[in-house]
């Protein structure tokens, strides 16, 4: 897999796995899981400073920004304006113009509002942001996002935090076959085989959080995911055998004894 690198907005990554930092028991567990995952980019959220907290250790003291690309998200935003506001604050906090753009349309499913997403994308791209856009499986929306200049299209595999895995390999294969920008599957992956199957569709990478944080042993699952993403990528590049509905011997049919 030497030289098989992922390039987003001109930046090169060796790992095709991006992980979130939410829902872990402790900062220490977060760091261990991130390290085990082999991820080079991690997502973070922008929230109010807790003024009541006795000076707690900041996430940035744990996740050295010089060691990891921090990708601020706009999680929890339900309108283009709100998402743009969070993106700007994230840029200031991270001194980077990369953003994982989420504009949600529904609290029960956390599905994206593609109209709001396109609106926010247009504004942020104009402000020089590198937009990684969380979207649904729709090819038409994905093509619009590409036309608007996103750095990556991030379709869901299934609802955020659902762990249902890749609901429609067809849609994801289709997106990948029609887009030039990187396709990073975001949300829904639940276990290693989901990640492996997803990468076998030819996509450029996967972003996950809950599958690690909510596993019984998050750090161990992070290692599993690191390997699964590599395995799926390699299998895609290696070219799988054809499927057949009958048996074919793996040992020679000739040279049998009388």
């Amino acid at each position, binding site marked *: 897999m030497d030289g098989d690198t992922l390039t987003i907005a001109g930046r090169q990554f060796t790992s095709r796995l991006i992980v979130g930092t939410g829902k872990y028991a402790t900062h220490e567990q977060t760091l261990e899981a991130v390290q085990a995952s082999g991820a080079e980019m991690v*997502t*973070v959220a922008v929230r109010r400073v807790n003024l009541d907290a006795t000076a707690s250790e900041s996430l*940035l003291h744990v996740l050295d920004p010089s060691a990891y690309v921090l990708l601020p*998200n706009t999680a929890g935003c339900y309108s283009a304006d709100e998402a743009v506001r969070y993106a700007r604050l994230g840029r200031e*906090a991270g001194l980077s113009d990369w953003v994982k753009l989420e504009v949600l349309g529904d609290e029960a499913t956390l599905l994206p509002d593609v109209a709001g997403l396109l609106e926010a994308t247009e504004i942020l791209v104009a402000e020089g942001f590198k937009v990684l856009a969380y979207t649904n499986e729709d090819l038409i929306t994905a093509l619009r996002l590409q036309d608007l200049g996103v750095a990556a299209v991030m379709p869901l595999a299934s609802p955020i935090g659902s762990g249902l895995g890749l609901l429609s390999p067809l849609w994801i294969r289709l997106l990948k076959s029609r887009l030039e920008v990187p396709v990073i599957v975001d949300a829904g992956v639940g276990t290693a085989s989901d990640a492996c199957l997803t990468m076998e569709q030819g996509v450029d990478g996967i972003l996950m959080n809950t599958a690690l944080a909510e596993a019984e042993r998050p750090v161990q699952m992070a290692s599993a995911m690191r390997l699964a993403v590599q395995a799926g990528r390699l299998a895609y590049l290696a070219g799988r055998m054809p499927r057949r509905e009958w048996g074919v011997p793996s040992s020679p049919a000739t040279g049998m004894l009388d």
Partner: protein
Amino acid sequence: MSDEVQIEVNGRNQAVPAGQTVRGLLDSLGLDPRLVVVELNRQVVRSTEQDEVELSNGDRLELVNFVGGG
């Protein structure tokens, strides 16, 4: 009193001395300017400007930072 201004910080009303700067507020709250981003009345205040900007009555501030998220 005339030497105090009323502001709102992260949704809470607070009184600060007249003429207090944004940086002064952060210091008084024990916040590390390198880890906190300040939004004043919907406009981001760059850390380089935090010494100049003085707080006025009715100012609404949001002090934010990075937390774990996916």
